[in-house]
């Protein structure tokens, strides 16, 4: 290296000459030759130190040392393949998990979305639960968007969109398809440009034009480059495709879906056809405008020009566009990163313990090197080199694992979670993993190096005393503790799933098939739709094998639910801000057919709608909140009228009379969601004059109960629709129980991941416990032998090991349970039906850990019991 070998040889020669000359002089002064040479050497001092120091003057010594250390490390590691393999696997697992999670978090959450100046894109939403009528709790009206666009000064662009699912006819026939209605400025605000053709622009407000996503173009327009100008038919109207979006662009919430974008049709007042707050708002901040300024600016517009009382008092919220896209998966991803970091900690504890054990067996080598003049720094450098080398190898293997894991995640979830199609391992993450590995390597060498130092500083090589170190035991305790945290967390998830599966649905899901129909033409006369839907209901009921059929505007687990969230006056109770309930429209036979329990009063009766008044059922939650301590039957409800509201702002003005109370039923698609106050109305009772009539007759949702096999029911239902209502399009047809189990899918995935981490952690801890005990038995052989010679039994020898194991595990459990309590709190929003500190989970975890530790301690304990006292004494 750099000709240093030759220079070193030359220097050694020179020093030899020096000593010879000195020896010669000594002989000339009369010393005997041997003594003369000795004196000369003594006078010269340590030759090797002189050479080392000379070489450090030449420079690059550290590099040469490093290369030599690496060669040496590689050689000595390959001499102990078992140790090296264990260490490598441990590190590869730990570092691999962390690398994969870091890569996913970087790709999904940290890297800016691929739009120009993404940092200036914001999502504006209603902060508080809106009162009045809205399509989603955070939606705003198109009128409000227009006001924001015109009257604010902080935004370079304000645009809105709403999503829906409708039958769309394209090159491949009629299929149910997600649609987005957007304001003309939508694409301009986002800053996206077309792949082919052009996008909807300011002049397209009234035009029958459509822009489609790349997926739509590929799946539904055959990927034809000449698709520009092709027609698609929605609700009997022709729309001309004018542009195709680039492949990577996904509108919020539309990951991987074939989407068609249409300009939203608004009337002269700027309202959309539903006249409700239905739009999400995306705006682009002007250069230099801060989020706070912009929010205040938007807020003032609402306060001054809000159309309704509710709008004037709306609190606006603002967050980055990136959060709108990925906000939902942010917390689960960070939770998983936490789990993988815990795993890495466990793995590094293993690495440290393995290294301590190995260094102990190399102590003679270290002593010799130290005696030959190697400084502590030099020995430390050797240890660090070796550890860093292993860590880096581990990081490389882990990186390989991470690449596999990340590409698997990309393939499996690209169309499911936002931005998962962009998953990749960027160099930055690999650098971070390498830095982590180097730190880990250095960290793992500190404790062994201190041992070496203690050892080599001692005058004698103390070979025969039992060395006791607390560190390995503490590390194992830490491992056990961390494993406990992971296991308890997965235990909590298991319990959550169990409780969710046992949630009282409030209805009987067995044998129910849900069917959602929609008129192919959305502009079909609402009354006609309603007639068709009612006729179908009777036809379904009459089918052979069908026990009952209901129509509900909100069926649990359906994706096509329509519910009205309305502020409500309850007679005999002063109105308070926030008094509201969800309104669901159901068919007359609802109570009997759905199996929901009627707690008080009666259900709907066939003559109700013609009796003049509107009758209503309320659920337990409604009674608890608004009618506690009162007789609910006969109470009158009305939609609340805010100051300044006109009749047209209310869904309808007629009073509703409570005739019955039903039990709570699961709402929406989340088994764990709290029960909201519900009001059920007969769908026939909805006044035709109400603007809701158009909304609620837009789709028909049926729940059909039958003992027949699912496929038989499905084909019967389809046959009826085809024959009786050819203008209705099937949006979905699913067995209810399948939908219930699907609704748990995400939680199952989370459980599987966390439990996976937990199992790996358990294995690593078992290896750790085994390693430390086996090592300690090796060290204590002599002690055990002497104890036995003095009359101790084999059982007691094994007990010695067992008690050591017990101490480690108990200490570990003690802080594991504390940690589990903290972790339980951190994930409590994911939990349902189980407390953050759950005794059953804790004791099950503790039992499992004790069992595994006992298994891991078994072999070392047996080895201790088999120590032969004679052998020990002979060796003394």
């Amino acid at each position: 290296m750099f000709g240093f070998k030759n220079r070193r040889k030359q220097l050694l020669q020179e020093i030899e000459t020096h000593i010879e000359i000195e020896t010669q002089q000594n002989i000339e002064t009369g010393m005997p030759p041997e003594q003369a040479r000795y004196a000369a050497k003594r006078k010269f001092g340590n030759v090797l130190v002189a050479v080392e120091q000379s070489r450090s003057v030449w420079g690059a010594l550290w590099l040469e040392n490093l290369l030599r250390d690496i060669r040496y490390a590689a050689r000595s590691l390959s001499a102990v393949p078992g140790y090296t393999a264990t260490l490598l696997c441990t590190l590869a697992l730990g570092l691999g998990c962390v690398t994969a999670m870091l890569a996913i978090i970087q790709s999904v959450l940290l890297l800016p979305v691929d739009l120009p100046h993404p940092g200036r894109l914001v999502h504006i939403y209603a902060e508080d639960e809106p009162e009045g009528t809205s399509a989603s709790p955070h939606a705003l009206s198109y009128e409000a968007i227009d006001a924001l666009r015109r009257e604010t000064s902080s935004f370079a662009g304000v645009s809105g969109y709403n999503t829906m699912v409708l039958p769309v006819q394209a090159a491949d026939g009629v299929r149910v398809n997600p649609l987005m209605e957007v304001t003309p400025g939508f694409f301009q605000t986002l800053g996206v440009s077309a792949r082919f053709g052009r996008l909807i622009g300011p002049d397209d407000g009234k035009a029958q034009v459509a822009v489609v996503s790349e997926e739509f173009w590929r799946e539904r327009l055959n990927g034809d480059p000449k698709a520009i100008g092709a027609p698609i038919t929605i609700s009997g109207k022709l729309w001309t495709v004018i542009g195709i979006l680039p492949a990577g662009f996904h509108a919020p919430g539309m990951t991987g879906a074939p989407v068609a974008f249409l300009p939203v049709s608004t009337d002269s007042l700027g309202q959309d056809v539903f006249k409700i707050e239905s739009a999400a708002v995306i705006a682009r901040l002007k250069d230099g405008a801060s989020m706070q300024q912009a929010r205040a600016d938007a807020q003032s517009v609402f306060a001054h020009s809000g159309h309704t009382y509710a709008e004037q008092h709306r609190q606006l919220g603002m967050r980055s566009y990136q959060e709108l896209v990925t906000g939902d998966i942010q917390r689960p991803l960070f939770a998983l990163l936490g789990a993988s970091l815990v795993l890495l900690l466990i793995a590094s504890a293993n690495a440290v313990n393995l290294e301590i054990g190995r260094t102990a067996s190399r102590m003679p080598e270290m002593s010799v090197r130290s005696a030959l003049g190697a400084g502590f720094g030099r020995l430390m450098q050797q240890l660090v080199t070796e550890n860093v080398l292993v860590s880096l190898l581990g990081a490389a293997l882990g990186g390989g694992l991470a690449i596999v894991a990340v590409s698997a995640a990309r393939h499996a979830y690209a169309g499911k979670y936002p931005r998962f199609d962009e998953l990749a391992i960027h160099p930055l993450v690999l650098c971070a993993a390498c830095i982590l590995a180097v730190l880990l390597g250095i960290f793992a060498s500190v404790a062994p190096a201190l041992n070496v130092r203690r050892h080599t500083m001692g005058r004698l090589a103390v070979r025969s005393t039992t060395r006791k170190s607390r560190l390995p035991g503490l590390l194992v305790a830490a491992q056990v503790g961390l494993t406990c945290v992971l296991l308890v967390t997965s235990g909590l998830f298991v319990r959550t799933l169990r409780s969710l599966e046992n949630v009282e649905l409030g209805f009987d899901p067995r044998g129910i098939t849900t069917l959602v129909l929609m008129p192919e033409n959305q502009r079909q006369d609402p009354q006609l739709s309603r007639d068709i839907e009612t006729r179908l209901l009777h036809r379904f009921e009459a089918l052979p094998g069908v026990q009952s059929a209901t129509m509900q505007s909100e069926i649990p687990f359906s994706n096509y639910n329509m519910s009205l969230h309305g502020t409500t006056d309850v007679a005999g109770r002063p109105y308070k801000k926030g008094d509201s309930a969800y309104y669901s429209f159901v068919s007359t036979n609802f109570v009997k057919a759905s199996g929901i329990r009627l707690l008080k009063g009666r259900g709907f009766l066939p003559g109700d709608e013609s009796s003049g008044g509107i009758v209503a059922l309320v659920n337990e939650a409604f009674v608890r909140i608004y009618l506690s301590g009162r007789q609910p039957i006969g109470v009158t409800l009305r939609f609340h009228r805010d100051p300044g509201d006109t009749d047209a702002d209310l869904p309808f003005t007629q009073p509703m009379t409570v005739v019955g109370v039903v039990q709570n039923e699961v709402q929406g698609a989340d088994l764990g969601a709290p029960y909201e106050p519900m009001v059920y109305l007969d769908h026939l009772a909805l006044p035709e004059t109400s603007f809701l009539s158009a909304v609620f007759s837009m789709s028909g949702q049926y729940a059909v109960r039958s003992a027949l096999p699912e496929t038989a029911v499905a084909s019967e239902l389809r046959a009826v629709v085809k024959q009786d209502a050819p203008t209705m399009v099937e949006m979905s047809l699913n067995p209810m129980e399948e939908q219930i189990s699907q609704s748990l899918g995400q939680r199952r995935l989370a459980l599987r991941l966390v439990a996976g981490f937990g199992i790996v952690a358990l294995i690593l801890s078992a290896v750790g416990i085994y390693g430390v005990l086996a090592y300690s038995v090796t060290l204590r052989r002599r002690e055990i032998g002497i104890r036995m010679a003095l009359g101790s039994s084999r059982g007691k020898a094994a007990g010695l090991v067992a008690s050591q194991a017990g101490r480690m595990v108990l200490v570990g459990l003690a802080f594991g349970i504390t940690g589990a309590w903290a972790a339980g709190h951190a994930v409590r929003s994911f939990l349902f039906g189980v407390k953050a500190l759950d005794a059953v989970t804790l004791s099950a975890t503790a039992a499992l850990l004790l069992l595994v530790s006992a298994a891991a301690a078994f072999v070392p304990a047996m080895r201790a019991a088999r120590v032969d006292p004679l052998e020990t004494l002979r060796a003394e």
Partner: protein
Amino acid sequence: MSTRKINDQLDLMKGTLDLLVLQTLAGGRAHGHAIACSIERRSDEVLQIGHGSLYPALQRLLKLGLITAEDGISENNRKARFYRLTTRGRKYLFAEASKWQRFSNAIARILVPVVEESS
């Protein structure tokens, strides 16, 4: 003696040792042993830790280009490496020596009454 102790002492002596080596070579070329003996004669302290410490100093001076090395034959017919001062080394020695001179003159003026007796 541990490496660390040697290092401490060397740091203290480095400057002095370098100057002494250069001073020795000012009289002509010399090999390691001769330099060591010459320095030993002039100062008890600097090489107390062994002749060995001379060699790192020589390497340092070589690297700085103040001296050069060449192979030669010693007075008792051994192959040895001889060191000689370069022009740069000579300049450096002159500058440093006069600096030291000035410094010691200054010290001497301050300490005159005490150092009177030792000459």
